[in-house]
């Protein structure tokens, strides 16, 4: 089976996110009020071949944690969809 995977990588909560903070600081000057907790991240999409969803999830999670994110500072979130 083939699955579409989308992995979102963000810095862990509590780890400083300079990019998110800088964007947030710029917002009032552009007239955006009431926006808070801006966090930046990256998103990756790819397709995985696996016998079932569990196996696809394991493979994609390992890929995310070993390559796309450094679990020391980042966390990843996986969305999976059968194709």
């Amino acid at each position: 089976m083939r699955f579409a995977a989308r992995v979102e990588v963000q810095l862990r909560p509590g780890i400083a996110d300079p990019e998110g903070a800088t964007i947030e600081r710029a917002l009032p000057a552009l007239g955006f009020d009431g926006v808070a907790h801006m966090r930046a991240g990256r998103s990756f999409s790819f397709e995985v071949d696996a016998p079932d969803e569990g196996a696809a999830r394991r493979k994609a999670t390992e890929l995310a944690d070993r390559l796309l994110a450094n679990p020391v500072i980042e966390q990843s979130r996986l969305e999976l969809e059968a194709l």
Partner: protein
Amino acid sequence: MAARIGVVVFPGTNCEYDVVGALEAAGGGGELLWHGDHHLSGVDAVVLPGGFAHGDYLRPGALARFSPIMESVVEFARAGGPVVGICNGFQVLTEAGLLPGALQKNGRLRFLCQAARLTVTSRASVLTAQATVGDELVIPINHFSGNYTCDADTLRQLNDDDRIVLRYVENPNGSLDDIAGIANAAGNVVGLMPHPERASNALLGSEDGLVLLGSLVGAVASVAAA
């Protein structure tokens, strides 16, 4: 009186002192302008220098274009005032819509700080008016996102209107059509990735940037005289 050229400082800009020094070597006078101000203090020309305005967060130039001073810069450029963007300044000018196209990450996804050989390909700009078409200049580049790109129509127009002012002899970053610098249709707004201020002293390796900065100083003088 020496031409007064304003050098805009955004938080994160870092080439401002170098540009002021090199403008002086080219016979002009540079003064610093703060991004948070709304006016240009009556300067005769504006340089947006290199650096990492607002940390280059989001995209290089993406936040700087919203700095208060940029409204005045856009107005000044539309009125025909000379505006030059160097490196990060070029990125700001594209984000602000004063120049077409965009600057992507370098082809090999690495920061590059090295000498680049350039060919002058058009004199129709405030930055190249005193150079000679076909001249080769050695000027350092120093960027992560200097890979120029635009759509096919824009490229055709840039070529047709003689607005590609500098090209790389050996393309270091994957830029479309070897583009190192472009001008707007009127030639008063120019953006380039190489740093002419870093080629303003033989002691440091090259003086080839002086012809470009000298053109800018000369353009201001001729406007002032007119």
